[in-house]
């Protein structure tokens, strides 16, 4: 009966149903089972934020190298040696070091809110990080990570060849979610029994009501005539929030 659920709302519930659900194909959410028998949700990152993260890292590495070049200019041959060693380390060891020692993210990935994880959601260690970063030599070919890009768009986890071999994922670092935010109001019993998905939709609506413009919340609330009754506008919103309060059991 309640028909105001946009596709985004239904999708959240769809994830836990079947593997061949059409929504899942287009979704970047990945469910990872842990040894505790539960599933945690990861969101894989696509080529664009990863390319930007790479560019930021490239910039940082370039600046470090230029600064070093100026600093060691006076040291002659020994300076040249330092420069070569630095160039080598920045090219091959920089990403490995940060991915293992700094919570899965090079500075560029950190800026873009990304991190590298093993496929099972655990942090990467030296072997996996080294595998994915040494294989950059292949992903880069023939120019500008063309091979890597082709691999990324050919599989559903956006893995370049290095990620495929190392069994790693690049995911969005989860931001700390806002604290539970269903506004407190006098609970109102719904006029009819609601199904679980309807209840969940109402809870989502109530939780987000503070983050959407009042006009839009009112518009959304008015769709659910059977629940709001004669109320319109702000009153309809308040009624739905009241029902949500009833559903989560506030007294």
């Amino acid at each position: 009966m309640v028909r105001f659920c946009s596709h985004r709302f239904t999708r959240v519930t769809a994830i836990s149903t079947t593997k061949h659900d059409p929504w899942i194909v287009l979704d970047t959410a990945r469910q990872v089972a842990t040894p505790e028998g539960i599933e945690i949700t990861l969101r894989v990152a696509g080529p664009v934020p990863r390319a930007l993260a790479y560019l930021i890292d490239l910039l940082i590495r370039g600046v470090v190298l230029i600064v070093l070049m100026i600093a060691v200019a006076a040291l002659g041959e020994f300076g040249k040696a330092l420069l070569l060693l630095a160039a080598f380390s920045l090219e091959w060891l920089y990403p490995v070091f940060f991915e293992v020692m700094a919570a899965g993210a090079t500075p560029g990935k950190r800026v873009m809110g990304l991190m590298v994880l093993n496929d099972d959601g655990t942090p990467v260690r030296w072997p996996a990080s080294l595998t994915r970063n040494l294989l950059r030599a292949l992903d880069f070919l023939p120019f500008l990570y063309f091979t890597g890009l082709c691999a990324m768009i050919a599989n559903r986890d956006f893995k370049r060849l290095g990620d495929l071999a190392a069994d790693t994922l690049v995911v969005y670092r989860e931001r700390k979610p806002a604290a539970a935010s269903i506004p407190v109001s006098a609970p109102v019993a719904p006029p009819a029994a609601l199904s679980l998905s309807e209840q969940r939709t109402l809870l989502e609506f109530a939780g987000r009501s503070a983050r959407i413009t009042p006009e839009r919340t009112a518009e959304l609330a008015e769709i659910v005539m059977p629940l709001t009754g004669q109320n319109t506008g702000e009153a309809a919103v308040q009624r739905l929030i009241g029902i949500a309060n009833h559903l989560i059991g506030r007294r």
Partner: protein
Amino acid sequence: MKQATFEARYLAEIERFEKWLDLGPKQWRKTQNDPAAGLETGDMPAAYRQLCQLMALARDRQYSPDLVDRLNHLVLRGHHVLYGPAGGQRARLLAFLAGGFAATVRAERKLVFTSALLFFGPLLLLLSALQWYPDFVLHFVSPVQLAQYEEMYDPANARLGQRDSDDNVMMFAFYIWNNVKIGIQTFATGLAFGLGSIFYLLFNGTVIGAIAGYLTAVGHGKPFWSFVAGHSAMELIAIVLSGAAGLKLGAALIAPGNQTRKAALIDAARPAIRIMYGAALMFLIAAFIEGFWSPLKSFPVPVKYGVGIALWVLVLTYFLLAGRKRAA
């Protein structure tokens, strides 16, 4: 149970866990047995499992997404801490060097022999052929490069294998930068069904064989061989091992066996990267020898040959014998 009751009962516990996570690793060590920290570090696994259960309940009961997201976030963070890097890295590294590396290489001996054939085959072939037809070298190396090599190995130089203007430390750094890069390329391009590794092995074997053969044929043999003798074992075997590691990746794609190609690749990457650890270390040692020992002219030629042969024996013995007990 309604969500409000659930929150009233468990929110304190959830917040306690969150507060502990916020402390970070340094504080965890400090407050290990300090009850004031809210959660003792040793209690973390139990608290984490409890949190997992709370999240499963919250999801199953369709509590509000805010709460479920928050629990998911905390479980994810707890998961990273609990299954994060373990200690004992140093002991594992020592065990790897003491024999694990040799055992891994022996386990892949078919690929190692294939790789060695691809590299040493053209090398030895050209080396011997050029003794009769030195001009044949021009098919492989340009005259400009050849002149550079002749200059490097001129018997009149003060040092071997380097121009007089080159500095030891600089050359050491250059060898690392250049040789490890070649090793990585040889390894990584093996993922392309082995083709890249095969190319780099054949290519490097050919060039090295051509230059060695030519220099020997035109009478620069003594400075050349006494220069390369010292680091040849480490460097050449490291290149062969890089190639073998690359072929391992390629072989997994060509013949994945009773697995998907992806799963076969992941399985193959583990021993391959272990071989690469060792190969990188060998490149490092080779660069050190090549930078500081090989150019020395103050030692008589037989001593330099002797050291070179000793290192070959040492390296081959290591790969034949080390780690047998552990692997068995």
